[in-house]
């Protein structure tokens, strides 16, 4: 039987990234994927003939440009086109457009509040301070604060040095930022209801928390710290859908001699003598390797594919209590044409960006109340994009693909999820949009509705949590996924983790995959192929 150097479990973007850097270092790597397609939650699927859906993740910003460059993803077919702006439609018929063009964006904000337009300058500068701090840690392995190893001490010193660059008052602000709710954070800057609602949406996406829950301010940062060609906070569309990201990484991986096997679901990680030495597939096939890397979320890794006997009790306990609550759904639609939005100025570029239909913090909090009561939000927060306005490759000419992220949608509903209940959830989203677009319902050709149930069953995200673990301070940095396990090494030798359950967390970022590869190569005494951070001095 052939013995590989490395098996990576799961061909999501982090698994592929991890494998690509290991293959680049000359290792014999195979990625095992349960589905028939690569990408996991970073996929493009043709679910209606002629229409390509980014049916899980749908926009790109966080993906580290260092990884893009190091894996030569441009040459492997990836193209990320920046989106233009965003808009929140209001119940009174008005709207707030965050235009791509800064001069118009400012005038539009002044229309809602002159003061907010000026406060936005302070808000942007403050957010950039926190972004600069956080971004410096994305491509680094978190130090273990309890360790006495020289490397940990040095990393900790680096961390302190970064923080030292803050003034005393900024340090206080930063600590508050991590523990505040997004509503309270934004209320320090803005007065207008619509501005508050517009900017808080990014803080609840994918999170089982509400706009008034402590900890949500950080989630805003997690969504703002990415960049497109140096424009921090910008988002983009991958041409051909998000699957283009994973396809390009897979292509890069193959160019280094790596292999991807689809329809190869791993049942267990084999451990002998305290060392991982391979996996058994669901089919019963045994595959051996010197190193096994799990790109599954922390719950799947420690509670499913590892045998309980191989996992310390304390770790099992941590894994059971790891917070990864499903809170989101997805509705993907093939459209017969471009929907009209009569509330927007005619010909407006605002449909080119993120579109939202929630105009107050109160409505956002009510949407969360529904989720707490195990109901999908009757009046949900949606993040809607129509990438086919830029991308000719995803729908026939004149037709469109719409991707709608929906917050909130619970893992369990009363009486359990049924197909009828799922469809009712989808219908409520369609109703909300058609309140602002009279011809919308006439354009629907095909609709895919995904609740946490589908996201878990199809993609393999436990509870359908898109971040593979909530982004709260207790589960970030050296606490992610658990204290003592934040350096990508598993509980047995030769076993590693590279999923978004690990630092720096979820989003199509690639950083956990790259960071994990760095640690593996270090342990194997191989040359480090992972990129260094493009330092932002």
């Amino acid at each position, binding site marked *: 039987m052939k013995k590989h150097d490395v098996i990576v479990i799961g061909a999501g973007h982090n698994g592929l990234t991890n494998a690509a850097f290991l293959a680049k270092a000359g290792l014999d790597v195979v990625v095992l994927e349960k589905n028939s397609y690569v990408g996991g939650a970073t996929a493009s699927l043709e679910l209606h003939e002629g229409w390509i859906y980014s049916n899980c993740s749908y926009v790109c910003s966080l993906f580290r440009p260092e990884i893009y460059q190091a894996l030569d993803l441009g040459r492997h077919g990836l193209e990320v086109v920046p989106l233009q702006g965003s808009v929140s439609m209001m119940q009174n018929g008005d709207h707030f457009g965050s235009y791509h063009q800064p001069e118009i964006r400012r005038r539009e904000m002044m229309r809602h509040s002159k003061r907010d337009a000026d406060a936005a*300058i302070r808000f942007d500068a403050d957010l950039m301070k926190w972004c600069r701090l956080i971004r410096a840690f994305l491509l680094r392995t978190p130090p273990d604060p309890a360790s006495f190893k020289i490397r940990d001490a040095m990393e900790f010193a680096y961390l302190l040095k970064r923080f030292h660059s803050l003034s005393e008052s900024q340090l206080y602000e930063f600590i508050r930022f991590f523990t505040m709710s997004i509503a309270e954070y934004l209320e320090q800057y803005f007065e207008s209801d619509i501005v508050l609602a517009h900017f808080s949406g990014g803080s609840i996406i994918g999170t089982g928390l509400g706009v008034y829950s402590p900890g949500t301010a950080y989630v805003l940062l997690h969504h703002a710290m990415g960049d497109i060609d140096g424009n921090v906070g910008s988002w983009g569309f991958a041409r051909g859908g998000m699957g283009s990201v994973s396809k390009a990484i897979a292509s890069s991986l193959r160019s280094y001699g790596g292999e991807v096997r689809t329809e190869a679901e791993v049942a267990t990680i084999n451990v002998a003598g305290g060392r991982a030495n391979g996996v058994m597939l669901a089919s019963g096939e045994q595959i051996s390797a010197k190193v096994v890397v799990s790109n599954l979320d922390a719950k799947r890794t420690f509670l499913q594919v590892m045998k309980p006997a191989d996992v310390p009790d304390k770790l099992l306990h941590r894994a059971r209590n790891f917070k990864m609550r499903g809170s989101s759904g997805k509705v993907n639609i093939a459209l017969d044409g471009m929907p009209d939005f009569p509330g927007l100025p005619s010909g407006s570029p605002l449909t080119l960006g993120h579109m939202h239909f929630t105009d107050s913090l109160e409505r956002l909090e009510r949407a969360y109340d529904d989720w707490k009561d195990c109901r999908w939000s009757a009046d949900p927060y949606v993040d809607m994009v129509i990438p086919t306005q830029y991308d000719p490759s995803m729908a026939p000419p004149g037709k469109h693909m719409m991707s709608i992220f929906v917050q909130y949608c619970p893992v369990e509903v009363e009486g359990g999820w049924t197909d009828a209940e799922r469809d009712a959830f989808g219908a409520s989203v369609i109703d909300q949009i058609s309140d602002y677009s009279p011809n919308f319902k006439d354009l629907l050709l095909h609709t895919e509705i995904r609740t946490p149930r589908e996201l878990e069953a199809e993609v393999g995200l436990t509870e359908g949590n898109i971040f593979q673990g909530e982004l709260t301070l207790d589960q970030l940095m050296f606490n992610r996924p658990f204290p003592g396990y934040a350096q990508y090494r598993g509980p047995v030798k030769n076993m590693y983790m590279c999923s978004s359950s690990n630092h720096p967390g979820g989003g199509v970022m690639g950083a956990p995959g790259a960071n994990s590869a760095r640690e593996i190569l270090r342990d194997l005494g191989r040359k480090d192929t992972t990129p260094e951070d493009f330092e932002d001095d």
Partner: protein
Amino acid sequence: MSKPPPNADLTPLPDYRQVLQPSPFHTRLVEHCPLQNWMSWNGYQTPRVCDVLASEYFAIRSTCSVMDLTPMEKYRIAGPDALKFLNRLVTRDVGDLKAGRVTYVVWCNDEGKVLDDGTLFHLRAGEYRLCAQHHQLDWLLLSSIGMDVSIQAETHQVAALSVQGPTSYALLTAAGVVGLDQLKPFGILHTRLRVFDLMISRTGFTGDLGYELWVEPAAALSLWDALFAPAQQGLFDVRVIGLSALEMARIEAGFIVPGDDFNTAETTVRADHDRSPFELGLDWLVNFDKPHFTGKRALLRERARPVMRRLVKLRVSGNKPPMDSFLYDAEHGRRIGTVKSQSWSPILKSNVCLADVGYSNGLVPSQIWAEIYYQKELEWRATWAECFMSEKPFWAHPRRLKTPPRNF
């Protein structure tokens, strides 16, 4: 869904195709801008150069220049606590600023770092206008908590022109303005011209004789036409100028621009990239004897320490432009700073610049050299030029202060 937005009549939807906003003078302005070289100044469509830069510069220094000043941020400050508020906001003592007078001010955050600078107009008893370089409404409102003061952004409600140059007094008089002969520098005159109210201040940003004219937007075109009537009769050469000509004149006059010569505190992201009034060479604007003002404690602490750095005026020898140049202390061979704004001065036949320079132990560097990169026919070259620090403005003509002013 068809209801109009509730505040639609107050502030119209921006037209997304019109990125830059036209000022009330726009229809006249375009007639003087054959170059169509526009830029944004606070969102307004503003000429960088109207026609020929050299002519525009010499209009300021030799005849008379007219510039649209509407984009300057303006705030109306009034109410029982207006003076108390302003004296707490700015670093200098404005308690004795009489009605009808103008003064230059800066304001800081609690760390004593400069947020912006501008001119404070005491329009009428208890009523003030603060002109600022950047958007300040948020800070002004934050600073006014607990005070009985009204603060209104009025940038769009006041049209303004800057008329600068040795014949500006003669031109305005020929245009029909009465009473300018007694108006002293930094004074305000409320008058009428033709059928509209006009406010004139003897202020400017050029270091020369000049005035700033303030009217309601509805009177903007009438004001413009009144100013250009004498020129049409062949009496004076009046030239519309863009921001590039102003940039040359203001560097010669030693005036600083927040955002260009230093990073304003509110927009600063990196530690130590903001500046205090001391670091900008504006010590004379800080008054520790007046009642408490924002930033006072930090500035008191800073005053007790040796000077770390300063924005200085440097004359640069030779004729190579010291654009973005690094500066070195020739004595110790250390890099000590960078050039922020620079210009060739056609009057002085010299390069002049404003530069941010580090002081070691509070000592002024004795010998400063600039490292200059320049190109000739697409070939880049490097050279060194000695710099000479100037305490005074590079250029300031005595005619700017004479009352009554001379006709040229």
